[in-house]
């Protein structure tokens, strides 16, 4: 819980096209393998036909979908009932949530359709209010909290698992203040056809669970209004992230349910950055990342430079 006392602004490495921080030349080659191609979990879980059927063609920048991995869906179905248990397997996600809010607020405060209104979530707000699409919302940890902010007018939580959404809907009923502001939709992003674009699309701990991340991100990008943001968090694919997220968190300490992560699907920060740098109309007015680390006993901490080693947040703005 102490993690939340850290304010996001302190440890951001902002985007510069000069590659002072990006000495990792491996990024471009891995970028291709990771973002464009399907990554199977392991031999046991691999079921190419299943997710290709849902996901559409990989690697097609305009037409395709990111897909949904049925193994992932069944994994999260199994976690559904304990999603809101404060001492349960999703505790780390709950503890991380204030940092997600801080990071999203920070991105929006750098510029956006509602920049003045959304800053710190205070003030009168714009006449319209912030619209948010939370893709892969799960039990609704982030969806609920962003919906409670005074300047948010509408939040759509999207998830391919009906079972998980059942938990999200049941939990949202516990707070009368959410009624009318928060809506859950059972759909993949590929099949979702909203009638408007959003100010903010969030993808928290999602891209590492998607078979075709590049196609998935491009589908999401279509739903962002000019000047709006995509904000995501994920995990870098490094020896240290394998140690912390697989070996320590899942296998040794059991603070994250086993099988939650497939290390091969992780995307490094330079890969993510390079991907968005190559998307026309994106990132020239704002692209930033922030590394963070869970320290047992202290909580989540924003640590400069740690985006190269483990969990990181990434925000990118669609050009106005």
């Amino acid at each position, binding site marked *: *819980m*102490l993690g*939340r*006392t850290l304010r996001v602004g302190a440890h951001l490495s902002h985007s510069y096209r000069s590659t002072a921080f990006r000495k990792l030349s491996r990024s471009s080659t891995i970028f291709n393998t990771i973002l464009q191609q399907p990554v199977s979990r392991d031999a046991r879980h691999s079921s190419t036909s299943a997710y290709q059927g849902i996901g559409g063609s990989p690697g097609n920048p305009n037409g395709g979908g990111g897909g949904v991995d049925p193994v992932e869906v069944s994994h999260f179905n199994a976690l559904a009932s304990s999603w*809101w*248990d*404060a*001492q349960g397997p999703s505790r780390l996600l*709950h*503890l991380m*949530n*204030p940092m997600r*809010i*801080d990071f999203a607020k920070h991105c929006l405060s750098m510029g956006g359709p509602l920049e003045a209104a959304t800053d*710190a*979530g205070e003030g009168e707000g714009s006449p319209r209010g912030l619209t948010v699409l939370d893709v892969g919302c799960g039990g609704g940890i982030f969806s*609920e*909290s*962003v*919906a*409670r*902010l005074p300047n948010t007018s509408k939040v759509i939580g999207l998830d391919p698992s009906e079972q998980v959404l059942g938990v999200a809907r*049941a939990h949202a*009923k*516990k*707070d*009368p203040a959410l*009624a009318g502001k928060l809506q859950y939709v059972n759909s993949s992003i590929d099949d979702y056809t909203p009638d408007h674009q959003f100010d903010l699309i969030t993808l928290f701990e999602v891209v590492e669970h998607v078979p075709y991340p590049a196609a998935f991100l491009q589908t999401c990008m279509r739903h962002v209004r000019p000047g709006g943001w995509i904000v995501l968090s994920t995990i870098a694919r490094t020896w240290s992230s394998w140690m912390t997220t697989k070996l320590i968190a899942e296998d040794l300490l059991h603070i994250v349910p086993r099988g939650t992560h497939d290390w091969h699907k992780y995307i490094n920060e330079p890969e993510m950055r390079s991907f968005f740098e190559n998307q026309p109309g994106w990132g020239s007015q704002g692209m930033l990342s922030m590394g963070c680390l869970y320290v047992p006993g202290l909580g989540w901490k924003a640590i400069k430079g740690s985006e190269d080693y483990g969990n990181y947040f990434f925000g990118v703005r669609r050009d106005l």
Partner: protein
Amino acid sequence: MRRSLLHLPIKRSAWAVRTSNAARITATRSFASEASPNPEIYDIVVVGGGPVGLTLAASLGAARATSHLKVALIEGMNLASIRDWKPTPDYFANRIVSLIPSTVKLLKETGVWKHIKQERVQSYDGMQVWDGMTDARVEFDWNKLLGGREEGMDTTIAHMVENIHLSHGLLKRLDELAVKPTMIDKTKVEKIEYGQLTEEVDMRDWPIVSLSNGQKLGARLLIGADGGNSPVRTFAGIESRGWDYERHSMVATFKIEDDSAFPKFAYQRFLPSGPVAILPLPGNFANLAWSTTPEKVAHLKSLAPEDFVAMVNAAFRLSYTDIDYLHNLKSGVVEETKWRESVTKYPDPPTIPVRITEVLEGTRASFPLKMKHADRYIGERIALVGDAAHTIHPMAGQGLNAGVGDVYSLVKSIADGISHGQDIGSSFTLEPYQSERYLPNNALLGFVDKLHTLYGFESGPLVPLRSIGVEIINRDWFGLKKFLMSQAAKS
């Protein structure tokens, strides 16, 4: 948290948030004889309108992040008498609180302190504490320690304020808030239970408070500022552990001899039956806090006023054996102490307090002493503050200060939860409050409790040892005294 709450044998409430047909039937069944109005939904319901509950309401209203919250405060007593309090210069109430500088700082920040009449506040920057058996003494006196007052340095140890005065100031502050809390006084909490599941909402983890006036309040967050026997704590199934000291604290307000030649000090003498303290008030007034056995308290209360005055003067001058003997006298204490004091050597003021001359009528009162600490301060949609969370021996005057510390920590956690879009009743919002306050309070409770035990011995190896310890502190070896004094001011 939630899991443990579910294990409790909790009755589900029988009202409906919005009366659907099904809910109406249930309600009629359970409350055949009475109307069952829907609860009014509040963000925060505070049970208890003592100084801690009022401080909580005032600081929620004063802090920008929380001032929009819909808050209700429930108090059994009549708050009008406190609001209309008219002090007179020749009378001070017997219930006095000692506010340490950090508490006053917080009261200033919330705009409460400006409503406190400074002419009725007595601050002091020195303490005289000594052992009733060995006379080993600690002088806490910033002026002596520093070789005189430094410019701009606040050397105040504490400010003595009447309870009613503080509550009066808090109510005045509440009256000037833009969004005022709903104050429900002269009203008792009759029942707390959990809400119901309906078509629209699921209130099964929302506490619903039923009041003696028939009102029902639904609480996103229910805060118990309801004292040592906290009904809120009982509802939440939180165990509070501790013990009775089998001691009562006797309080009274006195007139004293002219002490204008001396600095204002607090005096405390540790007798084996418990500490006896004289605390300064403005002008020639002082307040007594004497912790001793219930029998001895009964004796003190039964004495004629002049015998009682003689008894208290003797408590700071005569040996423990003498004092013990005097407790057997039903009358004639004045004469008895006169000759005993004539044959006893004791120091002069300001090492001991000046003589008291008169006890103000109707100010002799007493209450039992307890040490209690709740297992947790929070549950799902529940928080405990002040005595509801911890009851401390009053010898160090820290009870209310700890309660005010709780309040500010809790308000900070709530504000942080709001800015991060959390439900303010969720344990994730409340956890920082518990982790910030539990250990410091536990340490304070433990320290004061150990002092009580240590000074309970009339003889034996600990008696000389405690005196050596006190000597080491008093000579400021290892900078211990400075450390203790600055800790006392900060805590």
